[in-house]
Every structure is written in structure tokens, then in C-alpha cells.
């Protein structure tokens, strides 16, 4: 079950000088109710993976399945994808209208109330923001409106491509908060170059390099085997780096889903006990 990709390969511009293999036999899975963080250096194939999972790019080989069945047509009923800089795709006269576009396209009997609920879920009051032009929103608000446009589809799986890029601290926290809350309704994959704020809500991290999965595991696995994670050409998130160092000095591991506070108290407890 879940949203799964089995051994998928994707090559862009096949048979031309610009031929580019973006994914090379990648297997990937998101279960309902979990958050998977996908990391990897630029060009490693993260966006291509999400597009394949959403049925927007057809893999040359391998298959994508959602809860054991092939992707429905249109895939939007089962899988929602929020692209990088999604605010650049807003077009409606009002925010509410724009968010209702997806449900309307899918034949939802009441697209407006689906849109209102989605706006509320991303923390934008439908009464005030709903009637504004999407082009009058701030960057962070537009980002959340665009995310609402996907949440309104009611898909069981939601894929977010770099949802925090270009946002300030409070904008990033708002996005993490959306992910934490939506986890109850759906399975979520987050592609990001800044995984730190997502670690407490993530159940797994997957690292790509050159179109292959080089690491897949919990934060705990990453702390125990940092060399695997680092082999993706990435730096370990600071919160995990601290735990790697603490583990090396004999401190216990914080459980998966720990925040900075949790890690700090685990370490302080250990120190108190040893003295």
C-alpha cells in the first residue's frame, strides 16, 4: 500500500545530444500518514521523482502505483503535487477562485467550500484572503495559497517540491506546520535543500545522488551511519550532526521525531546521570 515507485528510470530528451538520465532505477514509497523528506544535491533527480510519482513524467521503465493500483486518470484525484515556486502558477481573479480551480476541474460538486476549507488549513482566512487578487499577496501568503490549491484536491498523497525556498523564518515555520497537520489526512513527501525544520515531523529521509537512492532511513539511521548520508554529497543537518558527535562520546540517541529541545534534554539527562 501507499504511493510507490518501483525501479523507475527517467531519461530526458532521449536520442538527442541533450540526452540526460535523471532517474536510474529508483524505488520509493510513502505510506499514508507519514512524511518522507527527500534530499539531494541540485540535479540529483528529486523533482523528476516527484513528477513521476504524480504521473506528470512517464518513466521509461519501472512503475508507479497508488495503494496497489495504477495511477488514476487524471492522477490529481490521488496524488497532488506542489511545484517549486508554486506562486508563479496562480492565475485566478481571486484567491478563492484560484484555489477552487482544481476541485472544479475534477468535478467536485462544491468547489468553493473545498477551497475555503483548504485556505483555512494553510492558515489563510478565507473571508479576508479569499476575495483578494492572488497577485496582491506577499511571497509567503502566495506560497500558502498555492499549497491550498493542491490540498483542495483532497488527494491521499501530497508531494511538495522545495516548499520553503525563498521564505523567511515565519514563512518556513508556517509551511512545516501545514505539513505536520496535513500528515493526519495524507502521506506527504517533501523535497528540500533545508531538511532541518522538517526532521521532527519526518518519519524517513531519502537521499538521491545522480538519479539513485544512496540513503533511505530514519533520522536515527542517519545518525548511526552518517557516512551513507554524506555520500550523497550532502551535509548532515545540524541537529543530527550534534547527535552523531554525542553518540561518539557515548551519549544515548534521541528518538526519531525529536526536536532540538528533545535532543537537548536527552543529552542533559545523560550528563546528569553520569555525574
Amino acid at each position, binding site marked *: 500500500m501507499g504511493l510507490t515507485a518501483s525501479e523507475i528510470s527517467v531519461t530526458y530528451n532521449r536520442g538527442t545530444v541533450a540526452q540526460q538520465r535523471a532517474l536510474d532505477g529508483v524505488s520509493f514509497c510513502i505510506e499514508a500518514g507519514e512524511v518522507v523528506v527527500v534530499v539531494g544535491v541540485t540535479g540529483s533527480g528529486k523533482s523528476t521523482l516527484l513528477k513521476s510519482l*504524480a504521473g*506528470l513524467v512517464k518513466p521509461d521503465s519501472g512503475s508507479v502505483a497508488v495503494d496497489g493500483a495504477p495511477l488514476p486518470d487524471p492522477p490529481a484525484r490521488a496524488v497532488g503535487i506542489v511545484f517549486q515556486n508554486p506562486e508563479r502558477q496562480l*492565475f485566478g481573479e481571486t484567491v478563492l477562485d484560484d484555489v477552487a480551480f482544481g476541485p472544479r*476541474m475534477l468535478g467536485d460538486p462544491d468547489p468553493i467550500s473545498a477551497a475555503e476549507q483548504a485556505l483555512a488549513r494553510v492558515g489563510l482566512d478565507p473571508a479576508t484572503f479569499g476575495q483578494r487578487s492572488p497577485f496582491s499577496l506577499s511571497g509567503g501568503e502566495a506560497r500558502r495559497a498555492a499549497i491550498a490549491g493542491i490540498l483542495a484536491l483532497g488527494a491521499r498523497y501530497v508531494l511538495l517540491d522545495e516548499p520553503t525556498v525563498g521564505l523567511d523564518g515565519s514563512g518556513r515555520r508556517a509551511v512545516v506546520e501545514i505539513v505536520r497537520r496535513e500528515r493526519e489526512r495524507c502521506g506527504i513527501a517533501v523535497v528540500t535543500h533545508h531538511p532541518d525544520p522538517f526532521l521532527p515531523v519526518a518519519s524517513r529521509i531519502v537521499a538521491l545522488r545522480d538519479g539513485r537512492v544512496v540513503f533511505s532511513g530514519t533520522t536515527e539511521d542517519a545518525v548511526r551511519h552518517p557516512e551513507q548520508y554524506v555520500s550523497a554529497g550532502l551535509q548532515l543537518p545540524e541537529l543530527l550532526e550534534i547527535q552523531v558527535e554525542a553518540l561518539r562520546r557515548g551519549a544515548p540517541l534521541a528518538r526519531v521525531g525529536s526536536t532540538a529541545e528533545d535532543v537537548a534534554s536527552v543529552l542533559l539527562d545523560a550528563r546528569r546521570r553520569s555525574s
Partner: protein
Amino acid sequence: MRVLSIGQYIPTDSPVHGLDPRTKLGVVALVTVALFSVTRFEAFAVLAGLLVLAVRLSRLPVRSVLRGIKAVGVILAITLAAHSLRWGSPPAGVPSAGSLWLDPAGAMTGVFFAVRIVLLVVTTSMLTLTTSPVALADGLERLMRPLAVFGVPVGDVAMMLTVALRFIPTTAYEAEQIMMAQAARGARFDQGGPIRRAKALVPVLVPLFVNLFRRADVLAIAMESRCYASGRRRTRMKELVMRASDWFVLIGSAVLCVGLALVM
């Protein structure tokens, strides 16, 4: 989802690609004049022979050269039909179907015009297939430079052309991304009649234009902050130079095309 493919330049390392864009523009102009002045098939045969030679030298896939002909297929069909089909009571000894009959003399004229169109299309495709849009713009600018004497803002026009060409791939990519993003929300671009399809493009075109205007704004500021001022004479990083091979091709084509135009 390749809906937008603009510009058909195919980069290969060939002597035709290596020619100065001005040479190629000049040759295309000469061949065009020749194609329209000659009145005999033999002249077409000579020009076609030269084109075949150019295609061979350019190392382009022949299919890409012929693609242009497919695009004008309808025009060719209409040209042939308009010249060769007659309506009325058919004279004896010509193929006919009811009152529709085939005029052999007209058919010859039709074939003549069709060959002219085919050669013209192949000639111009050769230009765009072997010359990058930016090189073309450069070449045009150099050719138009004398017009500056009459107050034509040649430099600005060239800059506009270059910037526009530079942003075609960016814009095409962005359009593709936006189409994908709207498809992810259930939009369909391949369903219904022409009106429904046109309407389906609204969610693509609105953000595309909004983003374009924003980008244009940023670009203008960036250019001005680096002291771009219109009307100023600018030097180039890479000056175009006519080499011996360019002069050879240009003069050779001139002699041949003018000769054909005068004689045939």
C-alpha cells in the same frame, strides 16, 4: 509534454555552420531572387543540386531539412490543384471526372510553382537549421548598421531581438512547467473543440504573462544598473569576421544566381 518547440537550430560541426551569418543571409537572398527570376526547370535543377550539396556538407539529418516541406504541404496541394484542375466541359483526351478535368499545361505550371516553393522552403530551413538565432540577430544587426545614418535605432532593435531570442527557451520551459502545474490540478489541454482548448490555456497564459512582465521589469533594472542606455554605440565581445571561405561562397553564389537569373 513538448508543446512548444521554437527555433530549429541543430548545432553540428560543419563548414555550413561555420559560415558567417551575413554570408548565409546573403546567399539566401541571392537564391530567393534567382528562384523568382528563372522561368525554366533546368535552373531549378542547378539550384536544387547546390542545395543538396549544402545539405550534405551541413551534416544535418535529411529528415530535419524535409520537415519544412511537410509544413507547407497544404499550400503545395492548393498550388497544384489551382493550376491543374479545371471546371466545365472537358476537352477530348484529358483525364476528367464529371465536369472536373485536368489541364496538362496548367499542371506543368503548377509543378513549376510547387518546385519553387519547395526550394524556397528548403533554402530558408537551411539558414535557420545551421545558424543560431543569436548569430542571425548579430548578422542582421551588422547588415542594418548603415541604416543608423537615417536615424533607425539599429542597436536597440538588435538588443531587443537578442533579448527576445535569449528568453524564448526560458519562456518555453516556464510554459511547460506551468502547464504541468495546472495539469496537476486536473486541467486538460487536449480535450474538446477549439474554443474549449483555447479556454483551457487561460490558466497557463495568465501566469506566464504576469511572470514575463515581472522578469522584464527586473531585466530592465539590471541592464540600467549596468549602464545600458539606448542609442549608445556599443562594441561587441565577438566581432563577426568574414573569412576567405565566406567571400568564396558569397561571390560564387552571386555569380551563379545572377547568371541564372539573367540567362534562364
